[in-house]
């Protein structure tokens, strides 16, 4: 199984549309791709869109928390969108508001 991410930029908002299955294996590549875009575009806001995600374990929580720390370091913020019931259950366990 694979995962992928596509990016959209609108002003200072960077949206990362995630898709596929997010686990420890696929999260590493997703993390690299998102971080590369953050470094290049320096957005004020990063939206992680989970609409296309069919499966996510706690590696996805690590992905969100890691990006959140990076964005906070430059005064930015992260929000989460397109959360399915399964992803939402994981986020509630981690006290992340979807």
């Amino acid at each position, binding site marked *: 199984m694979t995962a992928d991410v596509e990016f959209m930029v609108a002003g200072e908002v960077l949206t990362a549309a995630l898709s596929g299955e997010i686990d420890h294996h696929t999260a590493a590549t997703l993390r690299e791709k998102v971080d590369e875009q953050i470094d290049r575009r320096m957005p004020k806001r990063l939206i992680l869109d989970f609409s296309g995600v069919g499966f996510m*374990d706690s590696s996805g929580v*690590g992905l969100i928390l890691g990006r959140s720390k990076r964005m906070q370091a430059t005064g930015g913020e992260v929000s989460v969108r397109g959360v399915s*019931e399964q992803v939402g259950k994981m986020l509630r366990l981690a006290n992340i508001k979807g």
Partner: protein
Amino acid sequence: MNTNKVKITFFSRSANEAFARGAVAAFVAPLDPTVAELSDIKTAVSEAVTNCIVHAYPDTVGQIELTAEVQENQKLILTISDKGVGIENIERAMQPMFTTGSPEERAGLGFAVMKSFMDEVKVRSKPQKGTKVTMVKYIRSR
């Protein structure tokens, strides 16, 4: 449904996380689980296998053994075992947000997810001998 059991052994490579949860999903399919039940099971397997890869065999590739058994009353029993470094303090390892991995990228939620998504979780471990996680889920009849 009749009782049934499978045993799979595979290398602790991260590409096998998807294989392991896919194999268990296929084994469970005849029990006709709901989408939520199947998702819970796949997630718990993914967490347990990831623990083996990240923590049990941090600097090497080892063997992971997975068994899936269905008993009477739609009782699913999963075991995930390794012969890795073991866990010194199981109670501490099972605390939510505790991780010995990179705190930037590991949420430390593995055991919390297993406990929350499955009906029973037991962990046995001996340092330098390995760890065995046993998880039970009752598939509700529809």
